[in-house]
């Protein structure tokens, strides 16, 4: 019990300092199930400029070692595929998609 309290306190300390009351129940719908096409980044052509992440309305593209898409939430709007200056993102029909990934 003592250990759990310590652990939780530590977790709270890592949060950014919040300036007032904030709800702790966060809206979180798995909007990835809306998608009928999926953006697939061709990492060989990607120059990691970050433009796709900048324009993704859902905030699901992250600049890590390679650019990654969080398919649990990606709605498949296609904005990233249009804005990529290298045209390095394929927009694949979910029904024809073969490979790893949830949903």
């Amino acid at each position, binding site marked *: 019990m003592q250990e759990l309290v310590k652990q939780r306190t530590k*977790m709270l300390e*890592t*949060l*950014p*300092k*919040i*300036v*007032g*009351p*904030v*709800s702790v*129940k*966060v*809206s*979180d*719908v*798995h*909007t990835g199930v*809306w998608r009928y096409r999926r953006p697939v980044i061709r990492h060989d052509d990607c120059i990691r400029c970050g433009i796709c992440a*900048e*324009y*993704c*309305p*859902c*905030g*699901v593209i992250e600049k890590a070692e390679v650019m990654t898409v*969080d398919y*649990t*939430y990606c*709605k*498949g*709007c*296609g*904005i990233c*595929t*249009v*804005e990529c200056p290298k045209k390095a993102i394929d*927009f694949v029909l979910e029904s024809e998609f073969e490979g790893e990934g949830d949903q």
Partner: protein
Amino acid sequence: MAELDLLSKGMTTCQGCPMELIGRSALEVLGPKTITMTPPSCSAILTGSGDETGWGIPSVQTVLMSLPAFASGVSEALKIRGMDDVTVMGFAGDGGTFDIGLQSLSGAIERGHKAIYICYNNEAYMNTGGQRSSATTLGASTKTTPTGKKEVSKNIDFMLLHTPLAYQATASVGNIRDFKRKLAKAATKDGPCFIHVMTPCPSGWKFPADQTVQIAKLAIKSGMWLLFEREDGKITINQKPTNFELIPEYLSRQKRFNRINDEITAQIIEEAKTRYETLQQLSQLACL
């Protein structure tokens, strides 16, 4: 532990929603020391209902008439507590800004409270089904103007030129870096700031969801949307329109303009040219 999103993923806005993009980009600039508020509108999706919210910062759902009054109150409370490093961000649509919330906005600006007011303009009351607002472009079909709007839109930017704003700017989802730069500037001001953002809405304007940013870029190029800012009594034009002859293309890429004829197209082009000429002349003055 996963990094905390200042705006949660999994919001139920439409595919390709520009309003969500603005909300996210805004918090990237302003950071966790921000308090936000939204009126009834699509942005209320972000604030959520009941005890659930998408914001990782304190947020308030206001009434449609008086978001700026809420912002004024929060701003003054923060001042009394000496919390001057916290930003108050109002986040309202065109209906809540041009129409129903206008008198409240006018009052808040005149009283001079420190707050940033972002108006995302999707040119209609989208949340209630896409009825016209005074921001809707001439000729556009909406729920309440099925044959095309007969009136030209209200120019809220020009209206606000004569109010004591500490900073005023227009921005667009077509140039998100410019928006972020302007917001960062607004955050340094000790008074009321207004940023008016062009927000092409795929659901209401009827274009494919992947075109949101492209439509916004075309609006800037064609002179349908002007990028400028006003501070210290002077207007700076950030980007000149490339070619007004691109306006018919801008219109034809949105199904809401399906019913316009050549005469209305000519009127829209004429209006855009006049607007830009007026802005150029205003930018010569040093008294605004």
